[in-house]
């Protein structure tokens, strides 16, 4: 019984991590129809900066702030430099640019920080657990879940309740008409890249603190899976993506427990994706949110 509860909690936490990492991807896809694979690079960038700054200043708060700010800038720059000029090209061009960016970022991390990656010099949270009803829970895991719930609720409020959020949704559904109502489409795009990169950076630092390690290929764990998530959720649909993240997290957690001798983690996620898409070709969600 405890074993199943453990799997459930692990799955949910994994789902929260996926949600944080893939919300940005959903936002960007909804606006620009770009599969922003380099988002995984931003995730790693956040973690790398967070850990380095924390080591330098011995303050996790400064590490977090720095990681968030720099990742937001990096995300916006990626849009400005690489994506803006190829928006009219067929979609595979953007995919290849994005993959090229991910390769360049991962290889730069390898050259700058070394093959083995970096760790926190002094990590008070590493392997620290609390006991909840007989289940050992990692503190960082709990914090990650809490932060995911808080930020995503905040985002939902922002998108649904504020003027900027409404302008944003208007741009997603009808860009031309939104422009004629005075919405600055370019600003909305920067906002999507900024917020998406911020969430990815937060998730990146949290995972780095939890594992006490960031390797150059740190992001590949989430990169292709977050693509699967946004497709499962129905491309560009945020609620669908959240649901898909949780489903995929649970499927992986239970799947690796039961089918480990036939399929690896990625294959289980892939199988879930194929089965769901064949049953519902547009994913969990309908249309764009």
């Amino acid at each position, binding site marked *: 019984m405890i074993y199943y509860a453990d799997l459930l909690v692990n799955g949910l936490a994994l789902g929260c991590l996926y949600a944080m990492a893939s919300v940005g991807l959903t936002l960007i*896809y909804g606006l620009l*129809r770009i*599969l922003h694979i380099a988002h995984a690079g931003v995730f790693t960038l956040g973690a790398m900066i967070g850990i380095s700054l924390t080591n330098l200043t011995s303050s996790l708060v400064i590490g977090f702030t720095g990681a968030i700010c720099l990742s937001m800038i990096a995300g916006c720059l990626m849009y400005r430099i*690489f994506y803006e*000029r*190829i928006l009219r*090209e*067929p*979609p*595979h*061009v953007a*995919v*290849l*640019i994005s*993959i*090229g*960016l*991910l*390769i*360049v970022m991962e*290889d*730069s991390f390898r*050259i700058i920080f070394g093959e083995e990656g970096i760790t926190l010099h002094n990590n008070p949270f590493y392997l620290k657990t609390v006991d909840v009803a007989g289940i050992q829970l990692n503190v960082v895991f709990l914090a990650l879940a809490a932060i995911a719930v808080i930020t995503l609720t905040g985002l939902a409020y922002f998108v649904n309740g504020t003027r900027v959020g409404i302008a944003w949704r208007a741009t997603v559904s009808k860009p031309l008409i939104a422009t004629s109502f005075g919405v600055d489409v370019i600003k909305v795009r920067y906002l999507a890249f900024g917020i998406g990169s911020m969430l990815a950076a937060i998730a990146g630092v949290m995972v780095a603190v939890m594992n006490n390690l960031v390797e150059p290929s740190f992001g590949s764990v989430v990169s*292709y899976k977050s*693509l*699967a998530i946004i*497709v499962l959720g129905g*491309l560009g649909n945020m609620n669908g993506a959240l649901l898909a993240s949780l489903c995929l997290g649970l499927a992986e957690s239970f799947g690796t427990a039961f089918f*480990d*001798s*036939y*399929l*690896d*983690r*990625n*294959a*289980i*996620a*892939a*199988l879930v*994706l*194929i089965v769901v*898409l*064949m049953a519902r*070709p*547009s*994913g969990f969600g309908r249309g764009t949110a």
Partner: protein
Amino acid sequence: MNAYVLGLLTLNSIMIIFALSLNVITGYCGQVSLGHAAFYGIGAYTSAMMAVAGVPFLATIPAAMVLSAIFGYFVGLTSLRVRHDFLAITTMACGFLFLGVVRKSTFLGGELGISSVPPSGLGSLGDTLLAVGSALVVIILSLYIQKNWTGLAFRAVESDEDAARTVAVNPPSYKLLAFCLGTALAGLAGALYVNYARFIVPDTFSFGTSIAVLAMITIGGIGSTFGVCAGAILLTLFPEVFRFLGNYRLLTYGSLLILVMMFIPKGLAGVPAILYRRSSSP
């Protein structure tokens, strides 16, 4: 000719076949696939398993092609259900599924793959001639399809499926045809690769390979046979030519991919048109 040159010729021929096989699906028929390495892998594993069991190499080639095409048919069926980016991600998932199954299967050698595949018995020159000859046949086939009624139908499906229907082109059957043809050729490339490398590991057929082959056809110029050949040769020779970059090779590869896509998104096949426009307009 020494063994190094023969090896390079063989590898280039294999990559040309592999790239042209994806070009049938993505270039002609417009169905973007991010999991093409799986079919290359199915061909390779079929050929390797049969060769290890004692079947002569030449007899394993048709089997590899047929088995790849059968799997290609089923993946092709998904393209009838999902389109565009959804299809790209679905094919990516098929690639990961293939990799996961192979990694965990003791029958297929697991992580260690299959080693000591017996030689084909054609000799090193014979092997090279076989690969180069197959590449030439595939190039001619590719050009033939491009000019043929089938190629026209593929292009109709690529540009507008609904419009294709109105001129009595049935998109599902042409998509399935493209998938079967493309995956069969990928199976051929896989079988030839086994004979070239003599051992295979799952990682050879990972997502990176699918991306590399997509990069070949895009850098070469999607849909253009000779452009794709040029792209395949360019990316195959890349590690050899840029050996001096050592540690920075992957970085250079990524940067080149970005630069080419940003500045010549139509690929090498689009370069003459750009030059012509520059020279004709003052």
